[in-house]
């Protein structure tokens, strides 16, 4: 097959060959095999997910972060943008739970307001990356031949661009020091540059897992039973190639939150007065020794968010793999 590192997370089964005549007829039957309407893959996955505490925990956190991003004022009445310099680097207290930063701004309020930019940027860039990379990967892997060669070389070009350098080029072009883009325009630009620079990895991942899967007998069997190309790709190829993508996607959420912070730190990403965890972390790094809480709180939120996404991805992947049910 192809790359062994991806083969292990592709859900194509090893060819085991049990020889028993017939397992006990109720072996493996769900205990509640009552009259149900036919379920698809997603129905089964959902039924499986509902039973997992890990799913509920991570979903709960993600829900909180999403609400936080949408309605930050529900969580805090503080001002995330304006501060009093007199409060500069005052530690956590009853008034300001997370203390004040160098400019005397409420760190708790800033952390809450920072969720929006961080989560929106990370989620949308991951979706963009998976969409571009996944689509091109399927096309390259399934069609093969010159299409594959062309797309792969194209991906190599983007892969060859150093991430930070590429982002600097894109963002200074469209979001230079003298540009007057709005908060959302900047976010869109950051999302675009992250997606444009991130898709080649996803494309390779998808391509190799399509290459491994498309030779499988069930794809040939589907063709032999008269399935069309669209059906083969969507029904037979995609569900079997999704697992590695899902895993990579959830990991990517974390690294994109970090990447957004890097770009903000370099002054080409989001800019004050916009708040993001990345901006807060990069601002805090000069004061780690004197005021560690400046780093601790946004970092803790970041870690929790990333962990939640990773756990969610993991449980979803397990739910989508029938053998782990």
């Amino acid at each position, binding site marked *: 097959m192809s790359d062994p590192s991806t083969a292990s997370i592709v*859900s*194509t*089964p090893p*060819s*085991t*060959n*049990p*020889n*028993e*005549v*017939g*397992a006990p*007829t*109720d*072996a*493996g*039957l*769900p205990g509640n*095999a009552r009259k*149900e*309407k*036919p*379920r*698809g*893959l997603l129905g*089964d996955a959902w039924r499986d997910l509902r039973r997992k505490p890990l799913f509920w925990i991570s979903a709960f956190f993600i829900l909180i972060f999403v609400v936080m991003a949408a309605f930050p004022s529900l969580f805090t009445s503080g001002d995330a943008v304006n501060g009093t310099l007199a409060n500069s680097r005052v530690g956590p207290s009853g008034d300001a739970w997370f203390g004040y930063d160098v400019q005397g701004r409420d760190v708790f309020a800033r952390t809450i307001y920072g969720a929006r930019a961080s989560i929106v940027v990370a989620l949308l860039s991951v979706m963009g990356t998976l969409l571009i990379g996944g689509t091109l990967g399927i096309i390259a892997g399934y069609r093969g031949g010159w299409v594959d060669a062309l797309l792969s070389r194209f991906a190599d070009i983007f892969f060859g661009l150093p991430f930070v350098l590429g982002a600097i080029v894109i963002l200074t072009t469209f979001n230079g020091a003298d540009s007057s883009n709005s908060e959302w325009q900047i976010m869109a630009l950051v999302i675009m540059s992250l997606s444009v620079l991130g898709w080649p990895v996803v494309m390779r991942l998808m391509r190799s897992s399509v290459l491994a899967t498309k030779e*499988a*007998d*069930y794809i*040939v*069997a*589907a*063709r*032999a*039973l*008269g*399935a*069309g190309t669209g*059906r083969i790709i969507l*029904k*037979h190829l995609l*569900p*079997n190639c999704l697992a590695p993508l899902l895993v990579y996607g959830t990991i990517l959420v974390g690294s994109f939150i970090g990447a957004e912070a890097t770009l903000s730190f370099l002054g080409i990403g989001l800019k004050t007065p916009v708040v993001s965890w990345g901006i807060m972390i990069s601002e805090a790094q000069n004061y780690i020794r004197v005021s560690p809480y400046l780093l601790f709180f946004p970092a803790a939120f970041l870690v929790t968010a990333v962990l939640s996404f990773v756990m969610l991805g993991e449980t979803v992947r397990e739910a*989508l*793999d*029938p*053998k782990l*049910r």
Partner: protein
Amino acid sequence: MSDILVSEQSATGADGSGRPSGRLLEVEDLRVEFRTRDGVAKVINGVTYHVDAGETLAVLGESGSGKSVTAQTIMGILDTPPGFVTGGQVRFHGKDMLKMSAEERRRIRGEGIAMIFQDALSALNPVFTVGFQIAEQFRVRRGMSRADAKKRAIEMLDQVKIPNAKGRYSNYPHQFSGGMRQRAMIAMSLALDPEVLIADEPTTALDVTVQAQIMDLLAELQRERRMGLILITHDLGVVADVADRIAVMYAGRIVEEANVYDLYAKPAHPYTLGLLDSIPRMDEKGQQLRTIKGLPPNLMNIPPGCPFNPRCPMAQPVCREKLPPLLQIGSGRASACHFAEELVNRD
């Protein structure tokens, strides 16, 4: 070289002019080659066979003899490249499938001709339940509602004798045993009621007792539905039970075609003779197994004359020069050996 391969003189007595013969599925003078970096491998060199409704044709041959590639060409699932059809016809109800549009061919698959595979585990999609995969065909090809399709799928599972079909409907392939999987695979192939079923070594991955059950099931379903069945196998034991006619393949050609009794009683080709002789026998216990000496020819470089001549114990000078055509000898049987008559008439 093609002028020597006398396809029209095959066992069918056909005149080879594409007439509507009433045959269900005919393969005529099919030629397939694999173009690889190392050269061109001539995998199928003029295969001719046919199958009628309610008839079982066994295609026998060792690995690499081209029996599976013939089946893939019939189904239109040959990998192109490297595989290319360079000649011949595959007629279904008298129409040449090789000249049909992709869409026309796709419609025949499943409903006209279906295929079951050797390893049912890998031939079932691991992420969908077995029932769903059968029902999918009813929904997509017959436009049935989900509930109706499920009902039909359960009926199919029942027909292939899967116990507790209703409960098994929502099981995944990995929850089935080997034999059950092959049954499910059969149910899936037969869902759209095909007229011809191609079974590519359906029992190779199973143990002997299950093999017998699956073969019985196939034979029974075939009788009930009056299907044409092409059974591809290298197992002489499997063949004897169920086949009506046998076509023996060697190096991409049919070397002998006969009904089961004739073939086993009096093989008309030294290769068939060798195959039959290599079946282990109880009364020779402890002795060395008999084999056919040598290896099948390299398909990129098939020896001149009869491709079997380097391994043939009866080879004469003529065998190295002239390719023996598949000629009719007696009623309903044919052999591609210069000495077929002598073989049949000995002792």
